């Protein structure tokens, strides 16, 4: 269906074989990419949620560990403190009383109470608000354990406990003595700490001490009678665990996300401060101490409130998830934030792990990029494969098609009769010229073709044998070629001669340059001569025109003469016909005369026989015979005249014919003459404007023209030499031509053979 040669077909096959998988692979990769992208999105989303959740979990665990560790430390501190206390001696009251301005730590209402001195062994714990002054026992415990320590004195039966000695600082930096924990909280419920202690139990847990949450332990203090006269407190500020703070504050969620810890409620804390929504720990302590309860997302939703509301209902280690759109106040950018939150009930903390979704886009983008690069790689690989396939196809097709193409070319050469080239191509052995060229690449390829034993190789051998057989016929051609070579040598010699002539030309040119000044003068004369020539040319033109007119008249006359001659000829031939007619008439007359003569003879004879009676008749007969004789003579004369006339007429006709022939020639000559004159006139007329142009040019460029004119003479000389050389060259060329002709004939013979 397509007219493709063998090589192109193979190439197309190879290219298609490479192209189809490449295109298919690329399409598959492209199709897969969409699906993988979707799956990746899902996986990354899952992963990101899990990551954030894990961060929340980790934070939760950290807090939990901290909690238990602090709790243990508190226990340790408590036992340490109790040991020191026991070492100090028995606790008891002694007189005189001390008046205390007792302040309820919840509602800050103060009442004045008078209480006995609180004694440890023999040491009185005097009211000491100054940290610079050591309070016995208390400061020792604090120094050893670093925990805060307080000794409470039971105010009344209800169990209000007054701080009489403490290492807990107030806001103003003084010791927070003379505050008391009421047995009943402001909400009317019994204070859990007081309740436990009065029950003889040690209270452990968080407690809002003065104005901070502490991990605490409260142990009852009994006198020798076993009455609970106070309680012993050790506590460690919960948020004072710096490692935990550091860990949490520095925890990074995703790429830019962080951990935020907020208070979920405000239960158990001071009325003066609403802790709900207050930030405990934030990244870089950015929001520490701020209340974030009224934070809004872009839609105006109070999302922190939602989180706190929901978080308190979560079980330990359960996570809540929230997606919010937040506007960055710095640049107004809206980001999609993923929040995972957990609730650490012991500390009433909501642990929020927050990370923008964009942090995880990178992974998706990486995947996308990887897939893209895979697509490009597959396309690139396909292109490379295609290139390799094309190269291979070219190579293989060349391997297959070239011998056949070569044979085709050789066959074409043989068909054209170009046996030598065919022999060269085929590497035929008898071609000596071919032998010389066997070294080049083409021939080596040929050698390879002929050495292979496949069809192409055998074909090649067959073609080669054929050419060998044909080549034996070329010997004649060879001899002709030798002649050709000698002729070529002759040509080269002639060309050398021409070279020398050219050198002569060079010297002539320099001579021309030298002769410029002399030439200038001559140029003026030449100008005059040119004028003369122009005049003469004009005269010649006018004379030639006159001659042309005359010739035209002559031609016309000659033509008329030719016509007249023709007329005369025809007239003469008419005369000749008439004369012939006259001849026939005369013959008739002669016959009549003859008959008359015969009649008169017989009449005379009869009259003689009649004797005397016939005398008169005989006279008549004689007379008749005489008339007949005269007639005969006259006819003879006429005959003679007619014959002469006919002779003259035929001569005249012949002369006329000759004449008319001459006239015709004359007419031809005259017309030729007329044409020649016409041409002369044309040439002369053409000459005149040229002469004028030359004249003008010479006037304009007088000197230059004269130089050239004079140089022309020398150039003419050189040209004559050149002409001689060229003549020789022509002779050589003729010989060459003859040789080529001979060669051609030989080749023609060869073709036939």
């Amino acid at each position, binding site marked *: 269906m397509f007219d493709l040669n063998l090589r192109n077909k193979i190439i197309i096959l190879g290219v298609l074989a490479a192209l189809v998988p490449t295109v298919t692979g690329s399409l598959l990769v492209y199709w897969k990419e969409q699906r993988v992208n979707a799956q990746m999105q899902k996986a990354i989303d899952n992963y990101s949620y899990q990551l954030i959740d894990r961060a929340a979990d980790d934070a939760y665990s950290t807090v939990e560990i901290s909690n238990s560790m602090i709790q243990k430390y508190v226990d340790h501190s408590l036992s340490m403190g109790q040991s020191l206390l026991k070492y100090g001696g028995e606790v008891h009251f002694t007189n005189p009383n001390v008046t205390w301005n007792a302040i309820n730590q919840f509602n800050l209402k103060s009442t004045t109470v008078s209480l006995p001195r609180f004694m440890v062994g023999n040491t009185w714990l005097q009211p000491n608000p100054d940290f610079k002054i050591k309070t016995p026992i208390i400061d020792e415990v604090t120094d050893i354990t670093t925990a805060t320590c307080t000794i409470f004195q039971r105010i009344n039966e209800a169990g209000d406990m007054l701080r009489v000695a403490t290492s807990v600082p107030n806001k103003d930096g003084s010791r927070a003595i003379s505050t008391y924990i009421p047995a009943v909280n402001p909400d009317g419920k019994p204070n859990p700490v007081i309740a436990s202690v009065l029950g003889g139990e040690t209270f452990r847990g968080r407690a809002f001490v003065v104005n901070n949450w502490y991990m605490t332990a409260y142990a009852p203090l009994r006198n020798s009678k076993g009455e609970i006269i106070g309680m012993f407190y050790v506590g460690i500020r919960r948020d004072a665990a710096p490692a935990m703070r550091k860990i949490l504050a520095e925890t990074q969620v995703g790429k830019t996300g962080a951990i935020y810890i907020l208070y979920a409620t405000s239960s158990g804390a001071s009325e003066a401060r609403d802790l709900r929504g207050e930030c405990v720990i934030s990244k870089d302590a950015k929001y520490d101490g701020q209340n974030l309860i009224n934070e809004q997302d872009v839609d105006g939703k109070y999302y922190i409130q939602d989180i706190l509301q929901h978080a308190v209902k979560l079980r330990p280690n359960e996570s809540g998830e929230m997606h919010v759109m937040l506007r960055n106040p710095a640049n107004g950018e809206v980001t999609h934030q993923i929040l995972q939150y957990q609730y650490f009930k012991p500390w009433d903390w909501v642990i929020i792990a927050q990370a923008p979704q964009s942090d995880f886009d990178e992974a998706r983008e990486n995947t996308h990029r990887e897939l893209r690069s895979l697509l490009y790689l597959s396309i690139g690989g396909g292109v490379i494969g295609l290139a390799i396939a094309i190269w291979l196809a070219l190579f293989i097709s060349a391997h297959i098609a070239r011998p056949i193409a070569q044979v085709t070319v050789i066959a074409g050469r043989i068909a054209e009769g170009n046996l030598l080239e065919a022999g060269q191509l085929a590497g035929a052995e008898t071609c000596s010229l071919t032998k010389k060229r066997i070294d080049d690449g083409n021939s080596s390829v040929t050698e390879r073709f002929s050495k292979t034993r496949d069809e192409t190789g055998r074909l090649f051998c067959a073609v080669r044998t054929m050419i060998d057989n044909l080549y034996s016929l070329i010997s004649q051609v060879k001899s002709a070629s030798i002649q050709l070579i000698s002729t070529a040598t002759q040509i080269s010699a002639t060309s050398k001669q021409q070279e020398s002539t050219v050198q002569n030309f060079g010297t002539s040119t320099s001579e021309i340059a030298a002769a410029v000044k002399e030439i200038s003068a001559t140029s003026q004369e030449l100008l005059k001569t040119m004028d003369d020539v122009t005049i003469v040319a004009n005269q010649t033109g006018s004379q030639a025109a006159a001659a042309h007119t005359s010739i035209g008249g002559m031609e016309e006359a000659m033509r008329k003469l030719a016509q007249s001659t023709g007329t005369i000829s025809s007239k003469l031939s008419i005369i000749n016909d008439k004369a012939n007619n006259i001849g026939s008439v005369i013959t008739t007359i002669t016959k009549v005369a003859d008959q008359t003569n015969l009649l008169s003879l017989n009449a005379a004879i009869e009259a003689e026989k009649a004797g005397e009676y016939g005398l008169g008749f005989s006279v008549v007969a004689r007379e008749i*015979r005489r008339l007949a004789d005269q007639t005969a003579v006259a006819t003879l004369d006429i005959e003679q005249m007619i014959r002469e006339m006919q002779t003259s007429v035929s001569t005249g006709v012949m002369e006329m014919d000759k004449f008319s022939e001459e006239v015709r020639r004359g007419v031809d000559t005259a017309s030729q003459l007329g044409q020649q004159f016409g041409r002369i006139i044309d040439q002369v007329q053409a000459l005149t404007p040229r002469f004028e142009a030359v004249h003008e040019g010479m006037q304009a460029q007088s000197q230059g023209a004269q130089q050239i004119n004079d140089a022309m003479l020398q150039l003419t000389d050189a040209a004559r030499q050149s002409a001689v050389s060229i003549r020789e060259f022509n002779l050589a060329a003729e010989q060459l031509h003859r040789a080529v002709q001979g060669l051609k004939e030989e080749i023609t013979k060869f073709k036939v053979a």
Partner: protein
Amino acid sequence: MLALLFTIGTERFGLDASEIVEVAPYVELLHGSQPHDFVAGEFSYRGTPTPIIDLGLLTGQSACPPLLSTRIILVRRASPKYPDRIIGLLAEKVTETVTITPAQLHTTDQQIDEAAFKTPLTLDGYGTVQLLHLDRLLPTVVLDLVLG
């Protein structure tokens, strides 16, 4: 006497008109079985087949050419074998008659040879004319040969 003039070869002859039956134009002759070379042929004279003797051939000269003036002279001849027969004589330039006076006839000085078939006469305006003697030119032998 009236004589018919004619030419045989180069000589001018004359024949006595009384011996002539008629002068006939030269016509195409019938060539039958000629008894002799000098017999030119036969022609039908008034229904009778008549032999023609070429006088040129008879007198040992060339045959008479076929011209308008070459005519047949019909003469009456008789032999013992063939009484009263007409014979044609072919001669040239048979166009004229001449009257020969007896004086002219007898002025000849020449010895008349009895055997000779002609007698030379000198006639004014004609020169020498040989008078032909038919009985001597055509003897019985010849007549019998021709007519037989």
